[in-house]
């Protein structure tokens, strides 16, 4: 009676295998670059396996569903993982022996993400959710000699576990109302008539709101981003959020479909304040990572707009948005890491004269900034445009207008970063001559990301069509079980 389809989970098994391999290699090899490159190679292989392994379906009594939607998301996670690993190599050099842990934890979190988007059962979901979260706490406090990193870890931990507790209570209530942990039962059981179900939804929104950094559940974001190591933050800023959005879609569109009017208004409202606060708070920032943190919150606001729209297109465009976001935001964080390695900090004035000290690096960053700002012909432009389009089609015209206006605000601080690099001069003139050293691995990541942002900016269809079909199958599988 237990059906079990191994091929459906081949990426996950492969990932577990990779973890073991990395673990073993890490134990016996003293050069910590080897587990790093092993991880990267493994993830790349996995990325392509995921890309070309069309084994879709459900298994374990329908508690795990793999579709082109989840495949797409896994692609995003893996991409984030690859970039985060590439970025980390040079950073981890100072930690000597501990370097291997980083990759293990990253892989564990990745595994959690992959499972969480596939899960269609509450226990599995919750376990996967925590599997995704707990390694992140550790990673945030990874630099244990740096009290800022540890503080970031502590804050993330307290905030995270608090939210977990809320989420746990939320799921408990869902179970309590229906008496089943299977989503297909829950979908029919959770109705608006049940007060406990509504409470469940509220707690669920709070729990996932933390994960995606929806205002006002966002307050850990800037502190953690500022304190934690940049390559990890790059990962943290995109992958768990993508997972969070997938969770939102799954829960809201199936479990809470009956309460659609309620959560649509709620999400739309939070989308609005998320956009506003994220953008406004980014304005006065002087630390690059912190600025990117707030701007990330603003981006979440744009994507929540699509969640509020809740249509097939909206889902597709969120997926597209994440691809763009992974590339440009992680690129920007890696840039921040380069700056930290060279200057010992990431405040904006450290960037002065960068355009002259390393024009190519500055060009990468400029492309990322333009993409984040939504300037045409880099990828971010299309991402924003599509999300707005989807929202307009669902009648959220006012919010789109708000979003469009806030885009101009966003450009203000993105251009401000560009200004620091291109316009401002360093205080000591001789600093202009000091070269900026870019580690090879980061350089590779930056170059690839820039290339992708530019190419996809000119030809977004490459990602849009898979995203559209993924969204299509997603809705089909939702209705299917």
């Amino acid at each position, binding site marked *: 009676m237990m059906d079990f389809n191994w091929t459906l989970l081949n990426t996950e098994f492969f990932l577990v295998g990779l973890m073991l391999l990395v673990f073993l290699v890490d134990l016996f090899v003293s050069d910590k670059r080897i587990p790093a490159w092993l991880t990267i190679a493994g993830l790349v292989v996995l990325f392509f396996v995921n890309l070309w392994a069309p084994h879709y379906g459900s298994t374990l009594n329908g508690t795990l569903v793999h579709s082109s939607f989840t495949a797409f998301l896994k692609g995003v996670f893996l991409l984030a993982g690859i970039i985060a690993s590439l970025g980390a190599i040079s950073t981890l050099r100072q930690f000597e022996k501990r370097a291997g842990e980083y990759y293990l934890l990253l892989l564990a979190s990745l595994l959690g993400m992959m499972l969480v988007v596939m899960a269609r059962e509450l226990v599995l979901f919750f376990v996967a959710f*925590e599997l995704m979260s*707990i390694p992140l706490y550790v990673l945030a406090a990874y630099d244990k*000699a740096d009290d800022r990193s540890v503080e970031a870890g502590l*804050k993330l931990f307290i905030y995270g576990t*608090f939210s977990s*507790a*809320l989420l746990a209570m939320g799921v408990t209530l869902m*179970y*309590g109302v229906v*008496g089943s942990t299977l989503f297909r039962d829950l979908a029919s059981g959770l109705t608006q008539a049940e007060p406990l179900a509504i409470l469940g939804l509220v707690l669920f929104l709070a729990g996932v709101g933390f994960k995606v950094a929806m205002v006002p559940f966002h307050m850990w974001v800037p502190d953690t981003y500022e304190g934690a190591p940049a390559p990890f933050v790059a990962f943290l800023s995109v992958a768990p959020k993508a997972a969070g959005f997938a969770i939102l879609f799954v829960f809201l569109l199936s479990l809470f479909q009956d309460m659609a009017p309620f959560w649509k208004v709620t999400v739309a409202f939070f989308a609005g304040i998320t956009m506003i606060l994220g953008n406004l708070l980014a304005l006065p920032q002087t630390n690059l990572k912190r600025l990117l943190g707030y701007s990330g919150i603003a981006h979440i606001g744009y994507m929540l707009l699509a969640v509020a729209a809740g249509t097939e297109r909206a889902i597709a465009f969120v997926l597209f948005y994440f691809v763009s976001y992974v590339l440009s935001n992680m690129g920007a964080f890696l840039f921040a890491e380069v700056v930290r390695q060279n200057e010992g900090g990431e405040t904006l004035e450290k960037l002065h004269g960068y355009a002259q000290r390393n024009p190519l690096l500055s060009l990468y960053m400029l492309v990322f900034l333009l993409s984040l700002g939504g300037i045409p012909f880099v990828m971010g432009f299309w991402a924003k445009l599509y999300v707005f389009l989807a929202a307009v089609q669902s009648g959220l015209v006012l919010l789109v207008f708000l979003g469009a206006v806030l885009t101009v605000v966003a450009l203000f601080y993105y251009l401000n970063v560009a200004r620091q690099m291109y316009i401002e001069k360093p205080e000591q003139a001789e600093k202009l001559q000091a070269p900026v050293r870019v580690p090879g691995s980061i350089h590779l990541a930056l170059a690839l990301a820039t290339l992708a942002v530019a190419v996809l900016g000119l030809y977004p269809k490459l990602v849009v069509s898979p995203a559209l079909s993924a969204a299509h199958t997603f809705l089909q599988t939702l209705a299917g079980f």
Partner: protein
Amino acid sequence: MLTHYLVLAFLLFSIGAFGVLTRRNAIAILMAIELMLNASNIALVTFSRLHGNLGGQLFAFFTITITVAEVAVGLAIVVLIYRLRKTVNADEMDFLKG
């Protein structure tokens, strides 16, 4: 009768939440979070009884496990921060702000 257990769970959850918000000692905060999670454990078991299936109890075991993992990580972080700052007062962890 079962509603009493639910009320207990609710109270425990509220006490936990209150503790998280008001205690200044990081360890105490950790414990308060434990309370909240335990509240959901109680609720899970109650619901399990209510519906007459074992899903809830099963869930509770998983939750306990997860809690353990979280506490392990949490305590480690608290120890780290104590080493660096010689305090575990949550209010003093405000290097990062703005």
